[in-house]
């Protein structure tokens, strides 16, 4: 069971830090261990997240903004328990549905049908539940004609459509969305926006990572801004976005990408 400080919260992230050790000289063979058993490998320590704390309330649409490499995706993966933090704690109350990066763990050699079967099973659907929801998944993705095609023949936009359709059809209380709008066309974006409204109205929680500041502003109740792994500001979306725009977009050479 989770131990939340506040029962109104869906997610509590407390003092989370994460470093990735990037070895200068990758030692990942047995040969290396034999040839140089005593040499210590030197590391470049990359601090992906540095003492990040925030909480997401139940039913909240929570945004995370930041430049590329600022730690947004790492944060999402730690919340989803895909990565393990070095320090700090993460408490989650409710069932997560992750949409992490493009592709969402599809196998390119399998058909869309098989990939739906695998993903939905991993996310907790029983065979019967999948049968009931299969048509809805396909209908939303608008991929009826391609259902028995291998995923490797799908464009990245098509893959994202399919992945998002699965993510919103499994049982979930909390939806983690990482760049869901990045490759889709306008029509798909509009459909996503419509589902956002529905999800919000149903009282579910969404964590929304995006470079599309307009949609962050449109949907997110509160937003977190991270820079270089450090939280800069959490709070009312418009104020956070103002700070972000001011710091990273207007100032100096643009690093951030705005769609």
């Amino acid at each position, binding site marked *: *069971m989770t131990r939340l400080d506040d029962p109104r919260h869906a997610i509590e992230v407390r003092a989370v830090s994460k470093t990735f050790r990037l070895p200068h000289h990758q030692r990942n063979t047995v040969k290396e261990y034999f040839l140089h058993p005593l040499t210590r490998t030197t590391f470049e320590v990359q601090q992906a997240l540095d003492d990040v704390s925030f909480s997401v309330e139940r039913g909240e649409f929570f945004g995370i903004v930041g430049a590329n490499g600022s730690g947004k995706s790492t944060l999402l993966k730690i919340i*989803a328990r895909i990565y393990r933090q070095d320090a700090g704690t993460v408490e989650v109350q409710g*069932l997560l549905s992750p949409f992490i*990066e493009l592709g*969402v*763990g599809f196998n390119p050699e399998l058909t869309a049908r098989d990939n739906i079967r695998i993903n939905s099973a991993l*996310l907790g659907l029983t065979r019967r539940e999948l049968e009931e929801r299969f048509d809805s998944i396909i209908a939303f993705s608008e991929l009826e004609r391609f259902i028995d095609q291998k995923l490797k023949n799908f464009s990245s936009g098509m893959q994202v459509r399919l992945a998002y359709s699965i993510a919103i*059809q499994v049982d979930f209380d909390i939806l983690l969305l990482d760049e869901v709008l990045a490759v889709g066309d306008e029509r798909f974006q509009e459909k996503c926006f*419509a589902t956002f409204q*529905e999800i919000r109205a149903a009282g579910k929680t969404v964590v929304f990572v995006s470079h599309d500041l307009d949609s962050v502003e449109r949907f997110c109740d509160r937003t977190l801004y991270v820079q270089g792994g450090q939280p800069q500001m959490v709070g009312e979306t418009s104020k956070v976005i103002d700070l972000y725009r001011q710091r990273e977009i207007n100032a100096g050479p643009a690093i951030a990408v705005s769609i």
Partner: protein
Amino acid sequence: MSEARVNLAIAEHPEERRRGASYLLRILGVTAAADYKLKYSGSLLGYVWSVAKPLLLFTMLYFVYGHIFKLDKVSAYYPTSLLMGLVCFYFFADATMLGMYSLVMKESMLRKLIFPRVVIPISTVVTAAITFMINLLVVGVFVAAADITPRLDWLYLLPLLVELLAFVVGVSLILATLFVRLRDLSQIWELVVQLFMFGSPIMYPVGYLPEWARKIVFLNPFTQVLQDARALVLYPDVPRNKITVDQVFGPYGRLAPIGVALAVLLVGLLFFRREEPWLAERV
């Protein structure tokens, strides 16, 4: 604009949704089925290949060892005994090799989805086990052709299969986890598998080994299982202490290799559990 369709129900029993034996079995079934499909869809002969491979090897080895080295003269059941050994060995080699690569091959799933990671290596073992079962049917045909009548004590074959499976799962878990860190492990393991093949009494009778060597090979659960199976099916009249583990370790000698199998499984599970949180960032 078309109507948006979302599953709006709040999750029931969120804690149990992705937990428990039925969930594990279900995702194991789904991933193993997909693995099996992938494994043979790429090859020209498809599923036929899985049976043809050990049979081709069998034909060659039978010619060399049965005819040229005249092992045919030792026992009337030499061909069946050889096939039994090869099929079991093939399962061991197939499952551990695929198991070793499994985590690295499923890299994108590990990085993007939440589920118990142990399912991945185990599902490749299940995939290899399906091939193994099909191959055992061929062994059954050989047994039938040799005019051997089934007996009730063949039921002992089931615990033997379970033991072999436990051993193979344990080895696969260790290899899969190590391979994430040591990418040249595959070359080493290929060699080990070769040594394993000639170091186990697959092609030759175990009695041909000197006593010190028998003490070593019978510590291997694979040898104990194979010899017990041969004794049960092919040589019910031969005293047990002639061909099985009894001959080196006495009447309770079976406990030694069974202990090894369980120890390997336990080490595999513990090692995997220790490494599990870090797999996604290392694959």
